[in-house]
């Protein structure tokens, strides 16, 4: 039972589908805990469930014009770049507007790798990857691009939207890079990045692996053309995010899981029936 996670976040797997959490088929896992469950019925249910899910994934990929073999390759011909200020020109429902726009092929989409590289550790404020104009007479100039987002021709990219636009002294936490060197070598080691989509059950909504402080506008990072593909939400129109996604706290479970689940949690191998074991 070596169900290794192919989605280890330090080396993101490009074959990740954008919308696996929407899996409509819940029968497999929900029936697992049933007490009246019989083996043969279970196998059938699982097998059919898997087939349905697999088919659904393939259909989704095809519908999105993504080659399952190479998700970067698109069957659709590249579209012309959208009007640069489309996002700004549309009525003021920025997150929804942005969510409706898809990333333009050819524009530099933020990768998860780059997203992490910009942060010293998960949760650290990212550095500024571009030049900033100091002494321009405005303290919150950053917000002219980063509050609403939109396409920036200079960088051929969509500006990421800040999840905390009320904080206006931006350079207090976000600083540019003037050099790649270090003053002295550092032995700093960041802890592993949080694993994405740690759903408790297949298809259940993934918990939130990060702190919510200053990050309560979920769509700022999880929707829209500037969002990192791997963390983009497939249903940005559902705005009450915390209804289904809850922060994953570092606390013991309220009630302990069944002995089976406990073993699985510990990644222990399933017990082999002992021939010496006496019947109760």
């Amino acid at each position, binding site marked *: 039972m070596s169900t290794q996670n192919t989605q280890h976040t330090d080396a993101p797997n490009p074959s990740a589908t954008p919308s696996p959490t929407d899996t409509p088929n819940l029968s*497999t896992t929900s029936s697992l805990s049933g007490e009246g469950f019989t083996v043969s019925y279970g196998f059938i249910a699982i097998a059919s469930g898997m087939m349905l899910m697999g088919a659904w994934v393939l259909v989704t990929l095809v519908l999105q014009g993504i080659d399952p073999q190479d998700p970067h390759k698109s069957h659709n011909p590249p579209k012309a770049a959208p009007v640069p200020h489309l996002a700004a020109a549309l009525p003021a429902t920025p997150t929804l507007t942005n969510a409706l726009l898809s990333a333009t092929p050819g524009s530099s989409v933020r990768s998860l790798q780059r997203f992490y590289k910009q942060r010293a550790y998960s949760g650290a404020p990212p550095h500024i990857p571009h030049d900033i104009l100091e002494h321009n007479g405005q303290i919150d100039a950053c917000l002219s691009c980063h509050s609403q987002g939109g396409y920036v021709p200079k960088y051929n990219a969509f500006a990421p939207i800040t999840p905390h636009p009320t*904080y206006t002294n931006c350079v207090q936490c976000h600083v540019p890079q003037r050099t790649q060197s270090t003053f002295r070598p550092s032995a700093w080691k960041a*802890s592993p990045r949080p694993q994405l989509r*740690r759903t408790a059950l297949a298809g259940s909504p993934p918990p939130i692996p990060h702190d919510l402080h200053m990050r309560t506008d979920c769509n700022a990072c999880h929707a829209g053309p500037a969002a990192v593909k791997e963390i983009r939400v497939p249903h940005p129109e559902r705005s009450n995010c915390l209804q289904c996604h809850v922060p994953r706290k570092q606390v013991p479970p309220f009630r302990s899981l069944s002995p089976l689940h406990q073993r699985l949690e510990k990644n222990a191998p399933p017990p082999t029936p002992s021939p010496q074991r006496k019947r109760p």
Partner: protein
Amino acid sequence: MTISRREFLKNLAIGSALTAASQLIPGVSFAWEKPTSQHGSDITWKKAPCRFCGTGCGLLIGVSEGRAVAVKGDPQSAVNKGLLCVKGYHSIQALYGEDRLKKAMIRKNGQMVEVPIKEALDLIAQKIKETIQSHGKDAVSMYGSGQWTIPDGYAASKLMKGCIGTNNLEANARLCMASAVTGFMTTFGLDEPMGCYEDMDHADTFFLWGNNMSEMHPVLFSRILERKRTHPRTLIIDFATRSTRTSVAADRSILFRPQSDLAVANAICYELFRTQRIDLSFLQKHCSFRKGKTQIGYGLQDKFAFQDTPEITNLDEYKKFLEDYTPEKVEKISGVSAEDIRYMASLYGDPTRNVVSYWCMGMNQHTRGTWINNLVYNIHLLVGKISRPGNGPFSLTGQPSACGTVREVGTLTHKLPKGMVMDPKARKFASDIWKVPYSRIPAKPTYDTVEMFRALDRGDIRFMWIQTTNPMVTMPNLRRYRDATKKQGRFIVVSEIYPTPTTAIADVILPSAMWIEREGMFGNSERRTQHWEKMVNPPGDAMSDTWQIIEVARRLGFTKEFPWSEDKHIEHIWNEYTRFHDNPAHRMADYETLKRESGVIWPYVNGRSTQWRYNTQLDPATKRRNGAVDFYGKPEGKAWIWLRPYEAAPEEPSKDYPFWLNTGRVLEHWHTGSMTRRIPTLHQAVPASYVEIHPLDAKRLNIRHGDKVKLTSPRGSILINASLNQRACPPLGQVFVPFFDENYLINELTLDAYCPISRQPDYKKCAVRVERA
């Protein structure tokens, strides 16, 4: 079928189903697939105050597998409410520079050689004994820091003053906070601010006196910006000598000529009288008037002596004194238009406005630092806007425990944990708690910091132990004091975490445990004491500064005075130290409370923090409850309004040296950069120091952005890159250089003139020549 068999098959089914599922749907993963530790989710979060500036932000440090791996702002902290600045977020990276000092080192035949730490501690004790024998107690000295934890400073004070019996104890807070202390003492009779950060949630007018708050206290500045966002009537007035990010964010930026803040403060008071905005009943009830000596000098000579003598005066004389400071006259001195002066006075005097004044190094590093502190208090006292929510003068600090350790423990030559060494009662009190002979604590202060290094140069001091500070970057007129340390017959011990220009001149280097590698407490600007526990192990032989002092003290024979065990010594020190402050005006929280809370403001009386001191409604230490306030630090409960004139700076731009040189910090680096430069994000943002020049000056001198520039003062010169129109811009005739970069030692150019009352040097004003190199 047996149950176990059924279970086995069930497991098998689940296993294969999950394998199939995760291969089919790569995006989905399962909670039980891997032990959680592999994903960094076994992080435990522990509270600590930030290691850097005096704001004292509450941090939550994520620790995993014995290493600090992440930081977040502590939402429970009343200081920062979950927000940090870029230094705080990356602070833990300062632990992990590859060149961390892990072993003790001793200079043998000119070379630093690694030795077991016991050998180094033995040598230090032996050298102290030898020096005392050959040159007397007052040839031994200790130079600490506002980054010392409270137990560090307490152990140092007990060792030097109570055990060895010398007042040769100073701390680098002399270079940053001394004028604030003398300002408070001369006006109110007690040190430290009456208000707290919560003033920001009640005020609507913020005056920043020479304080680039958006870079130096960014988290507090963000609180002010938040106040402005939610309360549009809010005004921020940036009163400064150069144009910074703070000026850009402010509603009004008013520039003044260096040193002329003295004149402007008096002119504001003049205007308050002229426009009849004075709160006369407050003035009569709670204030009296004093004048001191004038033409008091600048402390440039060795063994400089000065003693101010307060002389009682009255309101009429004060009004007469102010007549020299009409806005029109002051406009000529300061370059601030009479209209701007009237505008500032109108805001201070507006009865519908709640006004707070903030300042830090601009007013403290000033050859009239005590005076300008007095003068800003005068303004608040005249309009009665003090000691109540949203109103008051507030002196910010630059180091995490300048207040907690240096000012409260009193690690300065004239101070004891409670009171001054000159006071027999204070000496008696200290000797009783320390259980040392009364006669051992000397009654006479010896050397302030600058004078201590001068004494080292002259040979009056032979031994110096430097902890948690980097004076070979920060001393003004640096060459003289660096040469002093290298003289024959001087023995310098340096406790450090990284190699610095100060370890370069050391005879013994002790590796120190830093911040969260040991237990400790800091005290921030708003009288808040914050405790943190040891979270990770220090590298190699590194040892906390407290424990280094205890080890040496025991080797000197003071085992009875330092009896504590290694695992409990911080708690024992805290319990002993707080006996000094066991009175309603200064009571500190107990150890358990400190461990529990994210910070506690003293006076902590009956389980409650006192946020606004002297306020008769809020401060349990007040006795005269018939008025709004009781300034119980002074006789009759009356604060002193001082008649302090404008006097010129000791060195002003001249024909040979036509520019003002101002020095200071940048947001990304803290002090001498020995920690922040080892943090990749911070170094990459500001990799090197530079000189800011006004673009028109630069044009005239044919200097472009990035060009090498030669700066020359009568004391030295450096080559440094020019910075034009970047984050800040000095006015015509002024240049600014950050001091964090040990490759550009700007303090070789600065002047070691100081305020004669506080003895704090002025790093903000000297004269230089600027040339294209």
